């Protein structure tokens, strides 16, 4: 500390030069960082709250299993689907979860390539969140089909009948996009965890833990050669994953953009969906980060700087989707298409018009508070805004999918949509599944990458003038 020049700013959490929040609280050493992260996993006393939370989430998972079992027994008719609204909660939830899954890869890959080092302390659980969100998302295409046991027909596998899937269908593109994304996310997540696995192996007291972490660390010894290969692998994977951030949701948006339905058939969907995905993804990271840093006392590692930055990202992506909404309305007028014009009118003032105004309020109006630094740096307020945004993004998909379908080209076939209890149980169930998986994650894996965090410490900085390292390292 002594080396830092005097500064008019007294707050130790603020960078004296830029005046910004620090990425990591001052005073941390390699050891303290490692200690702080690994103690959560290696503690012998699992907090009671964890048991309570996991039991709660687990019971919701059981509800999800019930809902899915009934679905397989009876058919998708237990949901509120009908003709014309043949896609309902399942697809909304799918798109919503996939969107949430974007933040992880964006933080770990995109920001890695752009050398945004502040990402380091949040990327691990953001990636975990991505994987769990992708699991929740991938569930829906599987169960939403009429005959789930034949869902594998969407996969192009050689078979005796020489029947191939239809490569013109965006749903097939989805299969590739989501499965690629899922695989890359898991691999990236795991590769990123290897050095930490080594740390865990070394610090773990129990035999079982040592064995498992030892397996997972795949012989990590921290040699320079290991580090070099690790860094290259991360960079390569980041290079692979970065286009995926853009492509996955673009492909998902093709499900709609390729269709001819007014409200779906629009060229702006790919960028607008990606922005929306990042928007909701960051909101979910905040939704998770705020309670975690509070409960596990990680304020030093997940600092206000992170919250502030994520708030800014949300603000920016929120404005992009606001532009998308504006373009929807503009194009309805500019295209002079009666169908488009009616679609927008119906979206705003039709029988389900309230959903549109919920979405505008949640996604555009309230997030404007993020212009204020106070809202970005106050964890509680930011947490509330993130909840609002996630609600809004769910409604965005509801409006796009359901409201567009209720009234399309032929007035005689207009219909409506009413979700059933099974719809809500499935939506709630995946929230439970996500939470349960997250509970397992925070309990058994280091949720903050220790190795990457150490890089952020002043000690790791290579300075032109050699200075003595602090003791205790």
């Amino acid at each position, binding site marked *: 500390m002594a080396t830092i020049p005097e500064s008019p700013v007294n707050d130790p959490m603020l960078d004296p030069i830029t005046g910004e929040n620090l990425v990591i609280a001052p005073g941390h050493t390699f050891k303290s960082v490692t200690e702080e992260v690994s103690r959560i996993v290696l503690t012998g006393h699992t907090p009671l709250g964890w048991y309570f939370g996991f039991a709660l989430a687990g019971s919701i998972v059981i509800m999800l299993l019930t809902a899915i079992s009934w679905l397989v027994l*009876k*058919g*998708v*008719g*237990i949901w*509120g*689907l*009908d*003709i*014309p*609204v*043949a*896609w309902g909660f399942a697809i909304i939830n799918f798109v919503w979860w996939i969107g949430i899954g974007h933040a992880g890869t964006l933080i770990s890959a995109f920001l890695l390539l752009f050398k945004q080092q502040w990402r380091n302390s949040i990327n691990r659980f953001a990636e975990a969140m991505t994987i769990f969100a992708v699991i929740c998302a991938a569930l829906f295409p599987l169960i*939403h*089909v*009429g*005959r789930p046991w*034949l*869902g594998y*027909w*969407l996969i192009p596998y050689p078979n005796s009948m020489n*029947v*191939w*899937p*239809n490569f*013109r*269908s*965006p*749903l*097939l593109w989805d*299969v590739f996009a989501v499965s690629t994304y899922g695989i890359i996310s898991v691999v990236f997540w795991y590769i990123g965890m290897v050095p930490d696995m080594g740390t865990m192996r070394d610090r773990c007291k129990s035999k079982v833990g040592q064995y498992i972490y030892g397996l997972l660390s795949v012989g990590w010894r921290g040699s320079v050669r290991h580090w070099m290969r690790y860094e290259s692998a991360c960079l390569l994977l980041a290079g692979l994953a970065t286009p995926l951030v853009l492509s996955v949701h673009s492909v998902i948006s093709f*499900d709609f953009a*390729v*269709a*001819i*339905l007014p409200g779906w058939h629009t060229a702006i969907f790919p960028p607008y969906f990606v922005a929306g995905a990042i928007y909701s993804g960051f909101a979910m990271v905040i939704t998770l980060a705020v309670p975690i840093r509070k409960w596990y006392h990680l304020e030093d590692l997940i600092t206000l700087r992170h919250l502030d930055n994520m708030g800014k990202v949300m603000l920016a992506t929120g404005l992009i989707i606001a532009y998308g909404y504006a373009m929807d309305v503009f194009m309805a007028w500019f295209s002079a298409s*009666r*169908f488009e*014009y*009616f679609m927008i*009118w119906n979206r705003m*003032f039709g*029988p389900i018009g309230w959903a549109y105004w919920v979405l505008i309020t949640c996604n555009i109006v309230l997030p404007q508070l993020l212009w204020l630094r106070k809202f970005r740096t106050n964890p509680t307020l930011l947490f509330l805004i993130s909840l609002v945004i996630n609600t809004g993004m769910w409604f965005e998909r509801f409006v796009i999918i359901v409201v567009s*379908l209720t009234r*399309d*080209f*032929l*007035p*005689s*076939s*207009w*219909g*409506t949509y*009413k979700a059933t209890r099974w719809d809500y149980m499935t939506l709630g169930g995946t929230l439970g599944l996500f939470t349960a998986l997250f509970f397992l994650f925070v309990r058994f894996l280091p949720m903050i990458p220790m190795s990457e965090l150490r890089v952020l410490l002043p000690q790791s900085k290579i300075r032109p003038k050699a200075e003595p390292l602090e003791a205790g390292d």
Partner: protein
Amino acid sequence: MSWTGDSAAGTGQARRGPADLDLNNLDDGRREAEMAMETVKDQNEMAALKTGHEPAGEGLLTLEQARAKLDGKTGKKYWRSLDELADTPAFHEMVQREFPTEAAEWIDPVTRRGFLKVMGASLALAGLSGCTKQPDEQIYPYIKQPEDLVLGRPVYFATAFPFPTGAIPLLVKSDAYRPIKLDGNPEHPFNRGTCDIITQATLLDMYDPDRSQRPLYRGEVRPFIEFVAAFRAMAADKKATGGQGLYILSDTVTSPTLAAQWKKAQKNFPQAKWLQWDPVNRDSWYTASKTAFGDYYDAQYRLEGADVILSLDADFLSGIAHPGFLKLAADYANRRKLLPTPSNPNPEINRLYAVESTPSTTGFKADNRMAIKASEVAGFAASVAAALGVAGAQADASWSSGPRQKFLSAIVADLKANGGKSAVIPGDQQSPAVHLAAIAINQALGNAGKTVVYTETVNPMPAIQGDDIKTLVADMQAGKVDWLVILNANPVYNCPADLNFEQAMGRVNTIVHLGSHVDETALGAHWHINNAHYLESWSDARAYDGTVSVVQPMIDPLYGGKTTQEIIQSLLDDPDMSGYDAVRTNWIGSLPGADKDFAWRKVLHDGFITDTAFQPKTVTAKTGSLSGTPAASAAGTLEVVFRPDPNVYDGRYANVGWLQEIPKPIVSMSWDNAALMSYETRGRLGLAEEDVIEIELNGRKVSAPVFSVPGHPDDMLSLALGYGRQNAGRVGSGPGFNAYLLRTSAALLFAGGAKITKTGKTYPLAVTKSHYTDHRSVFAGGDGSGTHSLEGNEALGRGIVRYATVADFKQHPDFAHDENIPEDPKPNETLFANWRYDKNAWGMAIDMNSCVGCNACIAACYAENNIAVVGKHQTKTGRIMQWIRIDTYFEGDLDAPRAHFQPMTCQQCENAPCEQVCPVGATIHSPEGLNVMVYNRCVGVRYCSNNCPYKVRKFNFLLFSDFTTPSLKLMRNPDVTVRSRGVMEKCTYCTQRIIAAKIAADKQNRDIRDGEIVTACQQTCPTGAIVFGNINDKQSRVAKLKAQQRNYGVLADLNVRPRTTYIAEVINPNPDLDEAQIQSAPVNS
């Protein structure tokens, strides 16, 4: 044999299973009774609840007691005793305990009898009736295959559906001797192959699993022979008194043979009475005919020669409830097709005026329509008559000023100008005064003998049924009725409420009920005899033109039912004469030619006797018969109008799932009836749709949900009869409310002075089409009216419905392609390569001018394509499975709209949005341009439905098809997959018929001829609105239709290139009445 007709002697060997061992010695009828006991037990209990009787039971005998009783007895005596024991309910209990509960199903009588009949048919009936059905399970293979049975190749038999308003001649498709599809008889002069919704649905009526299966005595199963014994004993007794105390109550008699039998029976029983009662009957017309002509006649309208038609609340375009519907609709539509032919290069369109109360498709097809209360129609008719100078006609004051006067005088002027070329048609649901006025007007205009002819009645025993039922109940109350034989009538349910038939039944010694179901009346009767369906029996009937049509069995009675003829025959001297012999004897003498047997075989082959149509009678209405017009109900009071339901008619088809599910015309409602009223009235009474109101009429009350209908007259409620059944079966019991509870013998048609109160409850209605009013401002794309239909406004604006008046059409023959309408993009404006169609390219053209919205096509599609019935809740949710629907758009003010009917089914797009998005290729393009569905490949992602702009794809959200009910399995079309859950389905232009025709053509090494393939909807369409064929063949009918300038594709601007196109409407409103709402073409914003 005829009395023990179904006694299955000797079938013991054909059956297997444990039951054989112990029951071998019981006689067959008895055994059948025991097997049925379990199912009948429930009915007993129901009967007991209903009638207050205790279920018959003389002390229960346990197994132990039975054993004790039989202890020590041996040999034959033992078995005879058990046989006797079988008479007691205790024995049935024992049977139940001794065998598994499924025992009854194991020895399904259908199976057993079916087997015998397959064998029997091959020997005795081959080629003649071939009436049998395949067993459910294989018992024995054929030793010798019946000569005419080639499995997989259907055979066709002619028969007729006897309906109160005249028989509908049919050609029945039969697969392995199971009737699987009913279509009009194409050779019959009356209907020329067309058909209607109710007739189509009687197929399901026959296979109805809830049909009564056994004769019952006081709720207990008895062999039919026991009834015969009792009935003949009664007949022998009564002979002495000439039949005093013997009353027969039937529904409308349609069979000349039956009438002849009764005439014979009357010789033995001159005091016996035959009375008829159908709640929907022709009393008004018969009364008017009797008054005007002195006798009962039928009026036949020959619309091919009518330039101007005036409907006086006559719904002659929506279904067979109106006598002569099929011919009237065809003749009407032929004058609307405007298709130039070499013989008639400039076809002239007719003009239809409608004055009506309850909105009907006839009213909405009318070029000028006025909705008035039912009680005002008589005043209108009298005013028209007065204006035409009919002696004695009194003009009604309300028609002497304002828009009404304008309307009246325009019609009068038009009628006057078209004397002899016009027709005035009165509705059967109107009072005799309206019919008298129509007779007088037609006579004054010189139409009689030209466009209107009078013939003898189709009903061989015409009667004023409202008087009949009153006479009967009075005699019952007076204790004069000893034996009452009810033939196919259900008076407990549908008798006028004031007569209280059920209570009067208590004063009759013996009531016999012959019916297809154990219905409300059967529960109160002593004897119930299960009726054979018309597809299972021999009879005859006249089509409305008079042509004698033979009713032949297509299958032996599934449940051994008996016919009306069989009952009546036992009153005659030769009681064992079969139905076949009775019919044959009745007609064979009058057949032409020397070889009567040959002539008879030709009759059976054709299904009708040639040249038996009625000859017109020269009759003149008595002058001055028109006196006194019944007063209209006072202004401001609520009037209640009773109407037969367009689907379930008077309630007799309540258990037919197809009829319940198919949305009714105009209201698009299924599964229910409702108190229909105008938007204005509903608003004034402060009611919302689906609110339940209590309707009070002369102290009688009924609760009904409210529904508003465009074009409904104010201050009037329309109530459809036929709902609120108690004992119709699993489908028909429950839905709707019973309007008969308000209907009294004094006011069978309509009544004034109703009061309504809001109950505060609501009742969900399954309406398949949304109906919103357009509250959008002009800026938002609306018309700012607030009273127009949103769907209607959008449909016109989007060019989905296009029409013009005759004058506009003459000026702009290409009005359907107005510059304001987005038009079809060029064929190459697509990313994907165009398909090539080298040989056949199937297409369809639908003439919107001809479509009268009668729903016959929907029923035909249900039967042809094994479409599942999903039930009310699923229908309400939006999961109805119909492949073709009639889209009804209302244009203009919803209180006086114009309506457009558009049959909508898969358009078989060449550039199909569904095909591109299916991930597994389950919906693909055929080389002939069909969008075909591969059910096996469908995973059920439903993307195709989302991307279908017409939303004609239907998804099996749950397991909708019934895979378990045995009788329904027999009904299915074997050429069409029965879809399971999780797959998408849709219209494929009846691809199975295309394939069948291709195979036939391939065998003869030729091309398919135009007209060789007809789709089910096309085949049945009464007006020929649907034409299917090869559009590559420029000489085909469909290609010629599509070559018209009026041809347009719905939503073709999406570049989907639909194969189904529509011929734009041309309407012919009276220019003097032309309202501002008529636009020549839709506007595009």
